């Protein structure tokens, strides 16, 4: 019995010596945060995170290429701790959301041709622009909706995307996704908004889309000087000035310039035509 205890003691002594020696002689400097993060991980080395062991994940987290959520073993709190240690924190700034520069749903905008192929705006754009009469307008195939991981975008009854402002984190995925570049990120305080990108002017525009900007310039006139200027047949709002001028939307004959109201979404001015809600213009080209 004592032999057994002695044997194991001797063995452990041997290995302890080796380990001590190894730590002294073979120590290699690395980012101490990796080690610290590694320590905070469960150390199960199960590999479920897709990295070869906890150390792998720790390195990836420190280098920023992975998040603690990858680890299936830790619980929420532990993940939270790791995240805190790694110091990924967002400051409190004004909420920014994605805004859509098109109002041409199927109820108001005409389709010139019927597109057949992959159900994707990006794919459709490559086929003669996608078939929408207005070259700049939303194709309504919902790439933005698909790409938004937070489900902050849904397609309305007229195949126009709607942003749920509370859910939007301004990640910018939809901005990248839209082949027509219709999305951009704006602080919620930007109430005044031009929901059109059509560069043409005059009545011809209205044949393609009832809510397009026909470049009449009334909004630019009604707003204080310099806030709105007409560039390439479109009003351009200078958000560096005081743009809180609801008046600018009132005389717009098409409702292309709108006022974003909390919980109501875009509101068109009085002069804008009441948009017919039910009829779809999709299959009735003029």
């Amino acid at each position, binding site marked *: 019995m004592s032999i057994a205890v002695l044997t194991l003691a001797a063995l452990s002594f041997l290995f302890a010596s080796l380990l001590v020696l190894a730590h002294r002689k073979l120590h290699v400097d690395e980012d101490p945060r990796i080690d610290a993060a590694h320590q905070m991980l469960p150390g199960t080395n199960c590999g479920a995170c897709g990295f070869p062991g906890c150390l792998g994940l720790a390195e990836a987290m420190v280098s920023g290429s992975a998040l603690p959520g990858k680890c299936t073993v830790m619980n929420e709190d532990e993940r939270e701790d790791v995240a805190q240690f790694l110091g990924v924190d967002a400051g409190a700034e004004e909420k920014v959301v994605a805004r859509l520069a098109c109002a041409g749903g199927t109820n108001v905008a005409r*389709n*010139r*041709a*019927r*597109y*057949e*192929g*992959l159900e994707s705006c990006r*794919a459709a754009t*490559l*086929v*003669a622009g996608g*078939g929408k009469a207005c070259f700049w307008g939303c194709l309504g195939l919902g790439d933005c909706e698909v790409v938004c991981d937070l489900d902050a975008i849904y397609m309305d009854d007229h195949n126009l995307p709607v942003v749920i402002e509370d859910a939007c984190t301004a990640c910018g995925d939809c901005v990248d996704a839209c082949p027509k570049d219709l999305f951009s990120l704006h602080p919620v305080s930007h109430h005044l908004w031009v929901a059109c990108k059509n560069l043409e002017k005059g009545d011809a525009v209205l044949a393609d889309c009832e809510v397009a900007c026909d470049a009449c310039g009334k909004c630019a006139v009604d707003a204080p000087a310099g806030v709105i200027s007409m560039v390439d047949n479109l009003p351009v709002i200078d958000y560096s000035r005081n743009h809180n001028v609801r008046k600018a939307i009132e005389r717009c004959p098409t409702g292309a310039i709108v006022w974003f109201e909390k919980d109501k979404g875009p509101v068109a001015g009085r002069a804008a035509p009441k948009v017919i809600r039910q009829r779809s213009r999709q*299959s009735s*080209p003029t």
Partner: protein
Amino acid sequence: MSGQNQVLEIGSSPHVTSGASVDVIMRNVFFALLPVCVFAVFAFGIAAALTLTTATLTCVVTEHVICRLNRKPTTVGDWSVAITGLLYGLTLPPDLPLWMVAVGAIFAVAVGKALFGGLGCNAFNPALVGRAFLQAAFPQAMTHWSLPFAADRFSELPGSILAFPFAEPVYDAVTAATPLARMKFEAIQAENPDLLWGLTSGSVGETCGALILLGGAYLVARNMMNWRIPVSIMLTVSLITWVFMQIDPAVYPRPAFMLFSGGLMLGAVFMATDMVASPITNAGCWVYGMLIGGLVVVIRFWGGMPEGVMYAILLANAVSPHIDFLIQPRVFGTGRGAG
């Protein structure tokens, strides 16, 4: 004014296609299998007819139900599941209880196909997954063979085939040994003509090499099958067998015996060629065929079981992603001949 009142249609080029379609291909494979099925019924009687019908119907129904459960349109119409069912049925012993046939069929489609995502996504040949499951689940029943051309085959059913669901089958007295089992355990080789014309016992559809080859030839002629795979398998098997036969003809059989015994013909022609689970390049197909051929010989000669085609194909299925990765077409303008 022309074209004015018509909404134009736009689409990506090319605007014309060859007209080939998956369902047409699948339907043709199904038809190519029919002669084999007819022969099976001829050789094994109503038992074979019942086995094949049960297998095919269960597969089709399973697929339909799974599509329904997933709230997707049914994919039964593409005929692929019918092939799975028919081929699966053709690999079963003719007196297997029908309830086992159904269990294996459900497994084949549910686990072998639907679970991976349905048509085109299965990493393994679904029909063989079903058979392998049965082989592992009910090994006795799966190694029990009835005689072909029994006198009463059109009038009487073997008792086992109607075994109560989940009950052990009770076998009639007469049993047969497959040519391979006789080879392995008694060192008796069947005659070539018997093998070619299907006069031996074995699985429902594996016995008649000639009709299988006919079906394969039809598909090859219609460009619906890659002939390189069966040819590669057969060449490999023949070559290795021939070499060993030279070494010791008392122990190792003739190449022709190897080719036409067991499931090799059916496997090589119809199952290894399942394009979903086989490599995509021609070179890859040669390698894949050699792998299957090699494994078949190894298992048959030195393994514990008399037959190894099923295992060889399943294992090769697992290797085929690697073959695809390692053997890629040489892209135009790279490597030799470029620049």
